[in-house]
């Protein structure tokens, strides 16, 4: 490996470590299936290695990476995806634009969310675990937790809303923009 190549690899590794959660979030917004999203993320990583020579370090990395992620999402959907619920291409594009803009600092949201999740306890945490780590729907959650599906929907809504407020508050407190 030449010195310059090694330097490039190190630079890419550092940039990718920071960008990967945001790129992953973009992909998973459009491909909610965890494994499909993981596969596309891997493809994006491979593409970025190949294209890294064309990256201009003066420009932000995340929007550049999202550009390739958008292409890979579209390609994966076309070639492999089996989900019956596929977002239309124009929506894939619009979400990419949102992620590429500086309108929302997803990295900042990510940090704030970790703090707020720490405050979750008991029944709320249990319901969220089932919904977001097991993809279990309100009916099944209700069955397990001895609640009606409607009560589960209300619980999920309340917790999501409170979490959102907690995140926005944390961001505002540190002077960030939401």
């Amino acid at each position, binding site marked *: 490996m030449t010195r310059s190549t090694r330097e490039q690899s190190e630079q890419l590794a550092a940039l990718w470590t920071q960008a990967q959660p945001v790129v992953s979030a973009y992909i998973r917004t459009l491909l909610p299936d965890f494994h499909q999203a993981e596969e596309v993320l891997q493809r994006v990583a491979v593409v970025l290695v190949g294209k890294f020579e064309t990256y201009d370090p003066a420009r932000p990395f995340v929007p550049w990476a999202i550009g390739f992620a958008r292409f890979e999402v579209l390609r994966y959907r076309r070639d492999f995806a089996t989900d019956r619920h596929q977002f239309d291409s124009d929506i894939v594009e619009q*979400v990419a634009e949102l992620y590429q803009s500086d309108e929302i600092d997803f990295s900042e949201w990510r940090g704030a*969310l*970790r703090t707020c999740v720490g405050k979750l306890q008991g029944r709320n945490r249990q319901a969220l675990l089932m919904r977001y780590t097991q993809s*279990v*729907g309100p009916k099944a959650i209700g069955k397990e937790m001895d609640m009606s599906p409607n009560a589960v929907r209300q619980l999920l809504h309340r917790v999501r809303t*409170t979490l959102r407020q907690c995140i926005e508050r944390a961001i505002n407190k540190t002077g960030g923009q939401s």
Partner: protein
Amino acid sequence: MSEQHPLLEAYLNGELDDQGFADFNDWLREDPAHLREWAVTSFIAQELGEALSEQIAGAEQSLVIDRIGAVERGQLDAEVLSLLQQIEAGSKDAPLRDLSPATTIDLDGSDSIDFGTAVRELSWAAGKVARHLIASKPALLTGLAAMLMIAVTLVVVFQGDGDGTPGIVMTPETNQTPEKPIAPSQVIATLTAEHNAQWEPDFDYGTPEPGDVFRAGRTVTLLEGFAELTTAKDAVVVLEAPCTIAFDDADNALRLIAGKLVANVPQQAIGFSIHTPTARVIDYGTTFGVDVKTDGTTHAAVFTGEVELRELSESPEQPTRNVRLTEGWASSVSKNGSLRREPKPVTVQDEVRFAKSMDEVVGPGFAYRRAVLANKPLVYWGFDEPAAKTQNLAGQDQWAGHAVGQTGRADGLFGQALKLAGPNMPAGGFTSRTPLPLKMADGYTLEAWYRIDQAHVGRVMSLVNFNTETTSKGSHYSLLEVIDGPELSESKRPYESSLRFMHRNFESDESLWGENLFAKSGATIGEWIHLAAVHEHRRAKLYINGELVSETSDDQPIALDATIQLIVGASAAAFNLKPLETQSNLRTFNGLIDEVALYDHALDTETIQQHFDLGRTVFGP
């Protein structure tokens, strides 16, 4: 609670059918705000899953390693092993529903977990465990790899459309707090108003909003701002952040865990009590304030009526002491639970410490005064009392303001203001009388609002050292005066129609006249003007209406430690304490002066701008 579109809500809950999904796509196209909302909520949902998984993986990694050890030792239940083999063999539809609910993995005969939990733990921690094994037990890796793969494969089966998945038993976390009661309980109070309120996130009940009721069993924390609660018997309680309050299943009582409140108790709620960690405050028809300080001390002050302040006994047998506090009296129970023997009169600190009503909170002046006090002035005079004296709102009674000569009162910025009718006789003003220690090396700030009623030469305020022996240099360390009017001397003509800020150093021969700053905008007639004069790090700065209008460097060393008096409304001569200046040099102000503050440190630009913004709301934009 904020509303979300039903389609977005259904999407987030995984409940959209084909038509719903098509409608959802259309809804996203309708408005960029919809797309943004979806992207943000979707991001939160994904991150939530990851964050929760990471928490569990981190907390249970060691446990999982133990359990993998159990697997390795052949302690898996035969039924589970058989199922794992089916899945490994490729029959992905291996029916989890065929697992009997009692299927467990037996761990050394001392512990057992249900199958679903075991699989989740295995999969969540699989990556970490693999890394751990690579580092510590490479020989085990081969044998375990298949098991870890199986675990991950199982999770695939668990995922998909959850509604169709048979029961997944979630074992409660071991460190989980007991669940809060779900059944409706007694309504203790209603949130009837709030002002700039920020609440601690409450995942059980949602963020409180006006109109919400608080039932027994709930605890809320107000992080910022003010909130008004009304109890079932119409006692009105004003909370000020930071404050934590609990609603117990007790009639006519609230539990104040930390922070401040003021209770206004009507006749029908007599007996209303506030429980704190060390005391009870029991009302007898009154308005009183309770402050539970960070060290646990409970302080109670009575503004009207009467209360009983009682120590909280640790055992029913132990006798407790109590004291009746009447209007204008205060006392406290220490963090150790002992009652102060002698009540003390309610101080000006108590008066400004407690927000007595929401009307007061939202009224003019409240936010301004809190902002001033937050910066810890030495002196803060509001001129709202009888003309001969004004309290030091900053707390130190010895630095109250005392009138000298002819002074009056008129409607001011907030409440009353000092009215002076200079520049000629009758002279008058206010002095701190007792000298203030001012460490000049740390800088200082003089702040006030004033309104000039006619063009004249008049002193707004000064810092004076009446004890200086350096007679040739006068006695003012610092002065702020209006220079205007038809009879200005030639030397002052260049500064006509301006406000002058002078800082003078007595210890240096080079600073006879000090450093002078002038601001034309400070001499406007008939308008309220905010001024802040700052000296720090050998720089003098003059702010008018929140803007830095003039500054200069001061190369001379400044006095390190001075004892000065604050005087308002005239020169030192008017106070008849220093014979140096003649009676013709009284320089009594003509107009109104209000909200005078002296700080023993420099305020920054942002703070000064904030003070101006808070004050200007009173007289419009």
